[in-house]
Structures are given as structure tokens and as C-alpha cells.
């Protein structure tokens, strides 16, 4: 995985996600950080990304809108989007998966959760 875009309005959350990604063996990837969905969308449009990780509850553009934009774009539709949120429940998770999210994780996250969620992508690359 070469480029991972992380959209979260919290610098602490972005740092935690980067730290977890490094721990699970993705330290060599380039991490591009965005403070909201609009910035995140700009980053994935500017340069190809292998993964977009997004919070749900963000100012300017929230994670659900970001996911909708990505899945509506022919160029970005195949980009895996992992949602990491503090406001998740089963109903919301089902809705996001239906919208095309690759996965949905609830905060607080840890490396094991992230590793399990990303295993299909990482294993696919290895193979």
C-alpha cells in the first residue's frame, strides 16, 4: 500500500491512526492527512490513493458525504474507504457498508482492529 489518505478533524485521531498503521506494517506508506471530508476528497482526486480512512463526524464535509462523493466518482469508485467513527452503531454500519464502505470501525481503535479490517487488502497485495 503506497498512499493512504486519512480524513479526521482531530489531529490526535489522525496521529493514532498513523501509529496503528505503522504498527501493523504499513510504515512505508505515505500518509496524507485531511481535516475534513472536503480536504480528503481533494487529496484522493489530486493523486491516486490505495486507501481512504475517514471519520464520520467532521465539519465542512462529513464522512458519509465523502463516501458518497467517492462512490459516485467513476475514477474513485474502486478506492477502499474505511470509516472510523465514535458515532457508530449497527444500523449506521449497515448503511455505510451498503453505500460502499470497505469497513466500519468504532473508536477507540487499536492495531489489532485495524489489522483485521485491512487484512483483505493487505493479503491481496501480498498475493
Amino acid at each position, binding site marked *: 500500500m503506497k498512499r493512504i489518505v486519512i480524513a479526521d478533524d*482531530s489531529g490526535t*485521531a489522525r496521529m493514532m491512526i498513523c501509529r496503528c498503521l505503522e504498527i501493523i506494517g504499513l510504515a512505508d506508506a505515505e500518509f496524507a492527512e485531511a481535516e475534513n471530508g472536503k480536504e480528503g476528497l481533494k487529496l484522493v482526486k489530486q493523486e491516486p490513493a490505495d486507501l481512504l480512512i475517514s471519520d464520520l463526524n467532521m465539519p465542512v464535509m462529513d464522512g458519509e458525504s465523502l463516501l458518497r462523493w467517492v462512490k459516485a466518482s467513476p475514477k474513485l469508485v474502486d478506492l477502499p474507504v474505511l470509516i472510523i467513527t*465514535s*458515532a*457508530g452503531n449497527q444500523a449506521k454500519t449497515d448503511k455505510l457498508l451498503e453505500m460502499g464502505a470497505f469497513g466500519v470501525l468504532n473508536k477507540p481503535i487499536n492495531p489489532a482492529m485495524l489489522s483485521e479490517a485491512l487484512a483483505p487488502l493487505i493479503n491481496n497485495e501480498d498475493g
Partner: protein
Amino acid sequence: MNELTTFLHQKTTAVLEETLENMAFVSIEECTLEEATNLKQPMLGVNLLITEPELLEIRLDVSKELLYQIAETMYTMDRDELSDQLINDLLAEILNTLAGRFMTVILPPESDFSLSIPELADDEESTSEFKFNYIAEDLPLSVEIKAAEMDNLNSLLNN
């Protein structure tokens, strides 16, 4: 403690433990308001609104010293490198995670809920019935649940 207070206290303690252990490898102990006050620590507070399914407010107050200790560990930075903005962001993210977990554990799985963006508290801490005090690393922190109407809190208990 009445049934509602006990319920909220148990749930708050469980999610605060989980949040701080996951985020910062910090464990907490329950304490009384008097024990927390006696530590005489400058505190930093943050508020967050739960706008659905009931209008509630959750406030988190954490000793500044504890926040700096957590930030030093999490960011692997020296204290003089830590900005006020980073400390405020850390406090907000702890509350954001805590509030989400709190709603997840008290509501049925199919229930939706919405959280506002956390905002720094500019008023004094209160001493309401639903304020729960803790100690971590010998430093105080507290979580307070507020509702405009008692019915809002009672309806959560009935879920």
C-alpha cells in the same frame, strides 16, 4: 445513589476505562468529589452535545498535568513541544470517543444517535448528581452527564 445514577455511573466508568486504556494505556480509579478536589489540580474541560435520540450534554474535565502526561506518551514529544492546541485536541478526542462508546453501550444496537463537535468548556465545573469523579496517575478527572429534562435521562434508562 438511585437507580438512574447507579446506571449512568456504571456505564460511564466502563467506557472511560476502555477509552483511556485503548488511547493512552492509562487506568482509572473511582474517587469521591472530595478526594478529587483535595488534589487541587488545574483542570481543562470540554463539552459535547448528544442531539439524538435525546438531547444530552457530556462534559469531561481532566487535570492539565494528566493531559500533558498522556500527550507526552502518545505523541512521544517533550512537554515544551506540546502546544495548547494539541492538548485541547487530545481532550476533545477523548470526549468524542467516550461519548460515542457511552451511547453505544446504553442504546439498543439498532438505535441511531448523533454527536456534536466537542467544544472547550468556558464555565466552571458543577457538582451535579450525575458528575462522576476518577483518579488516573494520581491526578483527577471527571465526567458529567447533563440533560435539559430529567425525562431525557429516564428514557435512556428505559431503552
